[in-house]
């Protein structure tokens, strides 16, 4: 048996001694993945509760309320009596929005005085607020156009001309790559991959950091036959394979569960996954060998990996970030891997577009490893690095 294999066998034998490590590798990401699947289980947000405050109460006012209730993202759950009650319901989050139909709505409409319908909506809950406001605006404008259309037609226009007169310029919008605005695809996926990155990063820090803390590094090196390279490769190789298996289960499971199509090249995605795992591992090794302290490395590691989703540019685009955040985001492996997932999963982009993210991930792995290199030998040999609490 060669040195690398011996180190790997030793590593696998150590595993049962660290319950928190196998929790981190197995039950925790599985539980997180299941929870996120449950969070996004409806994929799109439909029938969110709203209220209607109808000051008019006439037939046309009720018609306007029906336009709104027909919008898919809302469900009218409350008839509100006054603005005080509207405020109360909004603030208590019993409704995300209140549609206000003014007094004399019918009279003003009949006299051509353009009554104003107002949607008060909760933009603190931005996802719900944006969905509802766009949907209700569309419903009211369509209804309004129908009224205008009726007015124009009664003025003697043909229906096509009346339609054009009511709204001369229209926008025909097509949503590319995620036409249904599926949240599992648009937001859920980055959270799942972010979870994998936390596991990949912290598990590495833990297994290396424990050797230093428990002063078992000498034994580790002995099993490797005194070879630094064999020691590191033998130790980390099983975890790289595990990252890939975890990605297959978690990301693959999530993608299959939500029927997310893979439009691009699966082989290239797999290649990217390897580079992603290596980049996360190298950064973890870099932190651990230089800090030479399990707890500190875990603290810095959870800061780096735990906040990665915010910097990944998926929920908030990189071009809108501050310079500091853009730079930081560039170092986070998740950023590049999500770019690759977007390109090769959702877009089906040509491979030349996806080459840069894979190269950058590989480059990150190489640079982090080179920076770690001067310490990777000494910490196996020099007892001054061991035993720090």
């Amino acid at each position, binding site marked *: 048996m060669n040195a690398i294999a011996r180190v790997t066998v030793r590593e696998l034998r150590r595993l049962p001694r660290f319950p928190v490590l196998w929790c981190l590798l197995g039950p925790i990401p599985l539980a*997180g993945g299941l929870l*996120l699947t449950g969070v996004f289980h409806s994929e799109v947000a439909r029938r969110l509760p709203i209220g209607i405050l109808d000051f008019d109460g006439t037939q046309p006012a009720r018609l306007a309320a029906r336009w709104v209730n027909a919008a898919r993202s809302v469900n009218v759950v409350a008839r509100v009596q006054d603005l005080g009650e509207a405020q109360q319901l909004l603030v208590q989050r019993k409704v995300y929005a209140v549609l206000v139909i003014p007094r004399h709505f019918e009279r003003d409409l009949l006299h051509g005085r353009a009554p104003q319908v107002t949607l008060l909506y909760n933009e*603190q809950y931005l*996802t719900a607020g944006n969905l509802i406001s766009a949907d209700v605006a569309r419903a009211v404008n369509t209804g309004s156009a129908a009224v*205008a259309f009726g007015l124009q037609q009664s003025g003697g226009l043909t229906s096509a001309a009346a339609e054009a007169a009511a709204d001369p310029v229209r926008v025909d919008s097509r*949503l590319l790559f995620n036409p249904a605005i599926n949240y599992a695809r648009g937001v859920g996926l980055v959270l799942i991959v972010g979870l994998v990155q936390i596991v990949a990063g912290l598990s590495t820090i833990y297994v290396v950091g424990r050797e230093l803390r428990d002063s078992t590094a000498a034994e580790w090196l002995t099993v490797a036959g005194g070879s630094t390279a064999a020691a590191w490769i033998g130790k980390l190789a099983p975890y790289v394979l595990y990252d890939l298996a975890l990605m297959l289960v978690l990301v693959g499971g999530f993608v299959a569960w939500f029927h997310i199509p893979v439009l691009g090249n699966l082989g290239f995605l797999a290649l990217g996954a390897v580079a992603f795992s290596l980049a996360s591992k190298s950064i973890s090794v870099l932190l651990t060998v230089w800090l030479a302290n399990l707890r500190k490395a875990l603290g810095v590691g959870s800061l780096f990996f735990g906040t990665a989703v915010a910097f990944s540019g998926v929920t*908030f*685009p990189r071009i809108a970030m501050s310079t500091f955040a853009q730079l930081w985001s560039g170092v986070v492996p998740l950023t590049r891997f999500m770019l690759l997932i977007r390109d090769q999963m959702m877009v089906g982009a040509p491979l030349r577009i996806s080459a840069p993210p894979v190269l950058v991930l590989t480059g990150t792995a190489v640079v982090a490893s080179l920076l770690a290199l001067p310490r990777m030998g000494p910490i196996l040999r020099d007892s001054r690095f061991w035993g720090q609490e």
Partner: protein
Amino acid sequence: MTVLIRCFRQTLRQIFREEETLILLFGASVFYAFFYPTPYLKQILRDLPIVVVDRDHTALSRQLTRWLDASEAASVASRSNDLNAAQDSVRAGVAGAVLLIPQDFERHVLRREPAYVEAYADASYFLVYSTALRAINGVAGTLSAGISVRRLQAGGATSHAALQRARPVTFVNWPLFNPFAGYGSFVVPAVFILILQQTLLIGIGALRVAERQEGDPSREPLWAVLGGKLGATAFIYVGHALFMFGVVFSLYGFPMRASWVEVILFLVPFFGSVTLLGLTIAELFDRPESSTVALAAMGVPALFMSGMSFPAEVQADWVRVLAVVLPSTFGIQGFLQLAEMGARLDQTLWAWGALWIQVVVYWTLAWLVLRYRRQSRPRLE
């Protein structure tokens, strides 16, 4: 009472003795508070690059392009004749959307036929597609309304009457609590509550494991031990809350609409619930650093289970049931109500009450756990 004060001081001494708990319970929150908001400081997406494919080449199509370029949200990155090339730049992520102005666009308008423009937006990023469509719809709507009004005026209507006939019902969107749809104002307050929970859970977990390893020499009554710990963490974390929601919020320009008294009154059971939960789950950990390893990955699911992003109403029922266990669920909901939506404390009674129920439940659990440990402790004397 003196017992309680003794336990309180003992917990504080414990925290200050260990470098690790000191970092977790003091340093971490401060550092995260400065670091986490950095991606969101600009709040909104401005000047999103959009490619215009103008096949009309008329005064009207150029006007539409100019207006789009002038809008705050979008900027015209390039003009092109090739729709495929333009769509490729969206595919490559270089542009956020394509606006196609077809041939005969102006002619259709002049002939009083419906004139369409086509927008292709990148929906793989939600903020990109929504920003692009809002910009394009806004510009097209303005152009449309202008044309209608001019036509009606040409037909003899006064400008006022023309405006009203063009849009028989006007629609006004009135965003509340976050009027500029700032992404930072949306995310950061909720995440700060989560940061307080996670650092406190991890910190108290490390503290309790260390205490257990030392053999837990305390002979004080259990109620006082728990009370002393609650007092100490509440003392430190009220300080954190004042710092985060006072200093950091005003530094970064996030709104804070509640009185401090109400915020602190609201957060006291939150800190209590988190502390007691932390004491309970610390039983699962064999070493002080285990709490970091086990809990670091659970922050993101906890945040989303609160419903601050994807609405709680449309999450799976079993997730909503499990979410009840987490202090962050009610902590985030209630804090957003108070500090961002301007609610009074009595309007957050539901969340506040839930936190107090958690305090009672987790007090019982923590008490049972501590009692069990005490009884199973080998008696050396």
